[in-house]
């Protein structure tokens, strides 16, 4: 366990030994899986707890009033900027629009009442189960992203001369999760977004290093292997667009 902690700490400062230790460990995949699962559970616990506290503190009716007020303010602001035009026709349009908007909000209020009236369990129990479900789902989301992108990158790394096995690749790239511990602070307004951006960029550096070490090649090729799936996807989309354009031209 001490060695794993040391490896995780080393990964944060892109220490080569940390990645090599992870790659060459006897049960490298298990180490990687543990890293992802534990970190995602920590991050998920914080986020789910915050969601739970927020949900317990709010009443559905109050939430509806807040939504209505927020949307009304936004619409009034848009109207102030002339988004709905000017003159008698625009006034008439605004009147009809607002009437339908209020009716839409009334549907929302009615549905909120139905949700409260027809749910067998009391609201705190619902909130607990929803938070628990959200928390338990976290490792699945993280593991699937890690595996999916790991396989995709490995395919391109192999094309670029990489020699990693699937286990080595997943083991070294699992260290990407370490900087993402910062995502636990994602719920803080404004600061949370900034912290998430830092975690992403830091994670990207760790991922490049992990791919390079697993494949025994330089970081330039590792970076190329990581961005290649996006380049190929973009090329495929462009090809599809060109194909559709070609069909349209032919049919004309």
């Amino acid at each position, binding site marked *: 366990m001490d060695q794993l902690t040391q490896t995780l700490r080393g990964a944060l400062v892109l220490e080569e030994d940390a990645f090599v230790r992870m790659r060459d460990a006897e*049960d490298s*995949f*298990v180490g990687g*899986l543990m890293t992802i699962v534990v970190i995602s559970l920590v991050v998920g616990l914080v986020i789910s707890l915050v969601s739970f506290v927020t949900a317990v503190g709010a009443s559905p009716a109050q939430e509806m009033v807040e939504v209505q007020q927020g949307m009304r303010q936004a619409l009034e602001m848009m109207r102030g900027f002339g988004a709905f035009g000017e003159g008698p026709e625009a006034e008439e349009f605004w009147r*009809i629009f607002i*009437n*339908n908007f209020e*009716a*839409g909000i*009334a*549907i929302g209020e*009615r*549905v909120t*009442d*139905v*949700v*409260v*009236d*027809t*749910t*067998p*369990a009391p609201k705190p*129990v*619902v909130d607990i*189960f*929803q938070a*628990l*479900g*959200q928390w*338990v*789902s976290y490792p*699945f*989301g993280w*593991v*699937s*992203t890690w*595996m*999916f992108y790991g*396989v995709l990158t490995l*395919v391109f790394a*192999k094309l670029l001369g990489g020699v990693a*096995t*699937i*286990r080595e690749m*997943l083991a070294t790239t699992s260290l990407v999760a370490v900087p993402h511990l910062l995502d636990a602070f994602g719920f803080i307004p404004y600061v949370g977004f900034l912290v998430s951006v830092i975690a992403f960029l830091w994670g990207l550096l760790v991922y490049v290093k992990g791919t390079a070490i697993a494949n025994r090649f330089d970081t330039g090729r590792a970076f190329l292997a990581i961005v290649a799936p996006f380049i190929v996807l973009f090329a495929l989309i462009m090809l599809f667009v060109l194909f559709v354009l070609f069909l349209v031209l032919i049919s004309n």
Partner: protein
Amino acid sequence: MENDTSTFRQALDALLLRDSAYQSMRDSPSPLTRGLILIVSVGVVVALVSIVGALLTWFTSPDLGAIQEAVRQGMRDMPWWDQIPSGERQEVDEIIRQQFNIGWQIARVFAPSVTNAVVNVILNPVTLVIGWLVYGLLAFLAARVLGGRGRLDQTYGTTALAVAPRMLGVVQVVPYVQTAGLGIWALICNYLAIKNTHDLSPWRAFWATVIPFILLVLFVIGLGILGGFIAAFAIQGGL
């Protein structure tokens, strides 16, 4: 019983991508039977556990029918409703009701329900077994074309271990859990299964793993095109 325990242990090792699990399944005396037992067991156990999850989801969810009625009633109270000429209202209401119900029926199919969960006790293992039989055969053919040396029963035995990630579906005992992404884990397990059974190089094993999926996608596209042709022919022929 001992055999079942060792198959279960193999499945756990397969989940952790240990080659030894695939190799011992390949070399076991009856890989096909063991694979079948594993798949059916996982399918039934996960479906049974999911019933508890579905019950808890029902306990903590509102009545979809009541929400549907509230939305429908609310739509009729909207200002645009009054602008419809009274003589046409019944007809418009009927058209809206039909369209509206289609959407809700689709939502009901995908919404977790206790009935669906109970039906899944039968449906889940059957679907898994059919998928395994089709995939195993196609993977075996692809591997053989690419120079593989494994037998069909060995391929079935080892690819059955790719059901291992689905064992994690037992967490669905907790409502609202999303177990997305287990498919990619199963795909990696299939890759190791084919590689170890047929003694293929990494690239060949990769192609033998994905070719069955490519073939299945092509088959579905082919069916779609064929269906389109038949429909067009029927319309033109006035059938």
